[in-house]
């Protein structure tokens, strides 16, 4: 019964929270309306989402979010410094391939988004059969190090969370 009512417990929680934030109050009425939406929306959209990965490690998700937020702040400062103090001819932009160990589309999407938000890298494309990401680096004197860093820092963690 509980499984039927909450097929996606995290999605239900997220929708309820988003509804309460949209309303910007924390009363019980808002919570109940949010919960109703949080139950109806996953139930209605479930058929469109057949092979949804099951997320098992809330602690690891929280740790991942923290790492990404820290990296976003760091990357903002890095990019600002490059923009302000590095002349265009000193920059060494590069295209790099990041081979993927991840298989689920959701995990690859999260990885691509993370790469775009973090230090000097930007996801431009995915390969036709989904085994690699095409990354553009703003300033990468050592492209291989960037690739290894992405694989170790983000992809390994996402693999634990999604697969």
């Amino acid at each position, binding site marked *: 019964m509980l499984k039927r009512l909450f097929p996606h417990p995290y999605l239900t929680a997220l929708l309820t929270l988003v509804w309460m934030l*949209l309303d910007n109050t924390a009363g019980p009425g808002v919570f109940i309306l949010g919960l109703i939406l949080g139950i109806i929306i996953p139930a209605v959209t479930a058929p469109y989402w057949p092979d949804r990965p099951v997320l098992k490690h809330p602690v690891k998700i929280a740790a991942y979010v923290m790492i990404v937020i820290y990296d976003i702040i760091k990357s903002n400062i890095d990019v600002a410094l490059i923009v302000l103090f590095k002349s*265009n001819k000193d920059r060494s932009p590069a*295209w790099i*391939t990041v*081979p993927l160990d991840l298989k689920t589309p959701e995990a690859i999407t999260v990885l691509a988004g993370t790469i*775009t938000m973090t230090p000097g890298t930007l996801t431009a494309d995915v390969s036709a059969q*989904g085994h690699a990401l095409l990354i553009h680096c703003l300033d990468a004197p050592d492209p291989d190090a960037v690739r290894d860093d992405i694989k170790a820092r983000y992809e390994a963690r996402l693999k634990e969370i999604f697969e």
Partner: protein
Amino acid sequence: MVMEIIIAAFLVIGGVFGLVGNYGLIKLDHPMARLHAPTKATTLGVGGVLIASMIYSFAFEAEGSLHELLITLFLFITAPITANFISKAYLHRHAHEETLPEPNGDTNWAVLERPEWSPEPEKTQEG
């Protein structure tokens, strides 16, 4: 007083990053490089303003406001997608100018892969 200083500091940080991000648009010399400045520097620019707004609401208004977290969330979801679309459009038009790396054993990068049913490239694209 202390709160006002903190709020002002966040506003200034946000403003500086927003300014640098937009300066980057002018200064950087390549379309792909230009994409980096608005996707990143602007995140902290908007973030700083939003944090200032949240602190202000908790410090000086009857009810606190957490609306701003949602803006951050939506920004984090939309910024990479926008960047991805723009870079795909760039690749579509300028692929012949770029030397892209090999796609790890796959046939090609998705944006350059041409399905059999699609029209001939020279009829749909110019340069």
